[in-house]
């Protein structure tokens, strides 16, 4: 049995002062303010939060320091429709970024294929820790990447293939989903292509629609309506222009990265003020690192920018804990309650500050990171 004394505890929704948490590998047994029971080992922390979740990442697919060939398995840019791809098959568990993500308190990632293809493929939810990919696995496949942006146009114009327009891009998505709808009715002959998209039509999987511009977001929502998909607006830099449309449909947004140069015109709207507006209007919004180029390790620093824009500390912390956990359908990973998963991060200060550091990280009740000295 472990025991943590937390000056502040964020349980997924609220920040409590002076809490004691008792847990072991089986789960969190007790949270209180005066626990006499002796723990095996005792930790003291200024701030305790659930392990952070990065809801859209390329970690392990585009690896650190391995360059453009060996280290890049993110974008299979040879065919704009590749729903058959699964992130798990490309993730390198030995990517140095995993240990860095952990020391930033990010314990879980939804790893998705890149945005080159209109339909990029399927994601995998993993712990950022483990000896091999099966050890890291939480669930896979989960989440299907769609790209409604300049990216597929830019890639395939060079190859003289469709899509070279937004119409072409929407067509490719609609065509694949229509074929799947027909396949579902007859299922004459096994086809991996349609099989990969079936769970979307059954609303058992979520469509991560990567868009920046409002018109692209709207196209994604329109196609989602048409096929009754369960979408998550991803990146969504202009989603504040579509507040009503998003609210009406009860769609969530995976916003970010925030620390990213607005290198194209479709990114011109990017600002920390946008997610704050969404959240204040009741739209379920998670913040993502988009790793790489922005490192998952500093997901926590991005939420400081939301607080700076006037968002409450609780709501800011929820964007990388409870909200993404809900979107992934794994709520007990996003909170700290009796009975929830033991996935905890101990900080020596406010998690969103550059000044603060992660002291310890627990996954499945085991300490997987402990800071011995400055990094």
């Amino acid at each position, binding site marked *: 049995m472990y025991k943590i004394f937390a000056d502040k505890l964020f349980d997924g929704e609220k920040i409590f002062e002076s809490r004691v948490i008792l847990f072991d590998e089986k789960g969190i047994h007790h949270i209180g303010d005066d626990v006499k029971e002796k723990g095996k080992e005792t930790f003291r922390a200024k701030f305790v939060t659930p392990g952070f979740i990065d809801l859209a990442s390329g970690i392990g697919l585009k690896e650190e*320091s391995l360059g*453009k060939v060996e280290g890049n398995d993110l974008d299979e840019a040879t065919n704009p429709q590749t729903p058959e791809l699964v992130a798990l098959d490309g993730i390198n568990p030995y990517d140095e970024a995993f240990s860095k993500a952990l020391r930033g308190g990010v314990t879980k990632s939804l790893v998705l294929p890149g945005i080159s293809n209109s339909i990029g493929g399927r994601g995998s939810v993993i712990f950022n820790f483990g000896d091999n990919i099966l050890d890291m696995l939480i669930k896979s496949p989960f989440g299907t990447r769609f790209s409604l942006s300049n990216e597929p146009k830019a890639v395939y114009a060079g190859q003289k293939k469709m899509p070279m327009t937004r119409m072409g891009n929407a067509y490719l998505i609609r065509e694949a989903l229509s074929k799947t709808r027909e396949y579902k009715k007859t299922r004459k002959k096994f086809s991996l292509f349609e099989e990969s998209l079936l769970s979307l039509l059954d609303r058992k999987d979520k469509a991560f629609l990567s868009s920046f511009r409002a018109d692209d977001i709207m196209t994604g929502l329109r196609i989602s309506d048409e096929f009754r998909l369960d979408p998550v607006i991803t990146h969504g830099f202009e989603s504040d222009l579509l507040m009503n449309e998003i609210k009406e449909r009860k769609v969530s947004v995976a916003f970010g990265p925030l620390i990213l140069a607005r290198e*194209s015109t479709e990114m011109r709207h990017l600002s920390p003020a946008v997610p704050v507006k969404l959240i204040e209007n009741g739209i379920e919004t998670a913040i993502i690192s988009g790793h*790489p180029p922005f490192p998952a390790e500093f997901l926590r620093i991005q939420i400081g920018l939301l607080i700076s824009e006037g968002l409450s500390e609780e709501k800011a912390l929820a964007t990388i804990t409870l909200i993404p956990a809900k979107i992934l359908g794994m709520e007990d990973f996003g909170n700290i309650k009796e009975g929830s998963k033991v996935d905890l991060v101990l900080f020596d200060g406010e998690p969103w500050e550059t000044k603060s550091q992660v002291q310890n990280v627990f996954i499945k009740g085991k300490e997987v990171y402990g800071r011995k000295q400055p990094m």
Partner: protein
Amino acid sequence: MLSIEHGKIFTITNGIIDDGFILFDNGRIKEVSQKPIKGNFEKIDAKGKLVFPGFIDAHSHLGLFALESFFEGVDGNEMTSPSTPAMRAIDAINPQDPAYKDAISAGITVVFTGPGSGNVVGGQSVIMKTYGNTVDEMIVRNPAGLKCAFGENPKRIYAEKSQLPTTRMGTAKVFRETLSKAKEYYNSKNKKKKVDFDLNMEAFIPVFEGKIPLRIHSHRADDIVTAIRIAKHEFGLRVVIEHGTDAVRVRDFLAKEKVSVIAGPLLDVSPKVETRSASFENPRKLVEAGVLTALMTDHPVIPIQYALIQTGVVAYLGGLGEGKALELVTINAAKILEIDKNYGSIEKGKIADVVIYEGHPFSTTAKCDTVIINGNIVFRGGKHV
């Protein structure tokens, strides 16, 4: 005349004044004092706020890789020949690039900006203010350095074209050959011999005169040493190492050679094999070894408005400490850019570039409140004036 009252002043070179006063006159700092300065002038109340010299980004591509555009705004690398010394950043810089306003919104008042690292010899860079309407009025010094590049970038670019350089030897050959020609051109001109005018060779005159350094992009330690061996030892030129990701490995050598390093960017995922030793601890290790060190955003690699957050990570996680880390983006940057007579600290006589923050700029929740450039308020209450 304009003054700041009751601010906590981080002078950088003369400690911190807890309740300080600054008077500006004619675009310069007229007085820095612990006591109220009497007189009839516009006063900015900085009570409870922190006051810094305008921050300096010692290596960026502002205006050359313009934001919010693709092909139209990308003018940083003329990759049609591996040696293009006559390229001048000033001819491509777009002062309407939104990045200039982003820079001001974080209190960055001076930037070094220039060509990218696609070519072995890239062209002439400038030092400029972040406020202004035309590039000419924003210039602090032009040319301010001649950009050169070693390592992966030039050989990757020219390998695609099946053209030299495709190896590090090839890069060194282009570099040495260009310098040899330039030296001959410079010597002939000096001896008043008749030479055919050559725009590319003209770019080296301030370099051989010792007026501007070669600003050499290099990550790996062996590239750093190659750059110094050729430029400094063979040709007697001044060198500043850009990025220097692996500079820690040769820090004693750099200290002995008195070669400065502009480290970074660090707030990104290491993209290349040659950037593998990227670490927030590197600036601390260089400073401890006695290497004059500054920190870059390499904007747009790290968006310039997050320069201070990056510096904060170097200060705390990297262990350099707040005071020394502030120097990376103020006085050290000014010294490496050789503008420290006018910039980099709050001192009497320096140019009136001053920034007022609510909270420490290294904090993610701090807010830049006021920016004064050349004695004029250009940013106030979190808004561009």
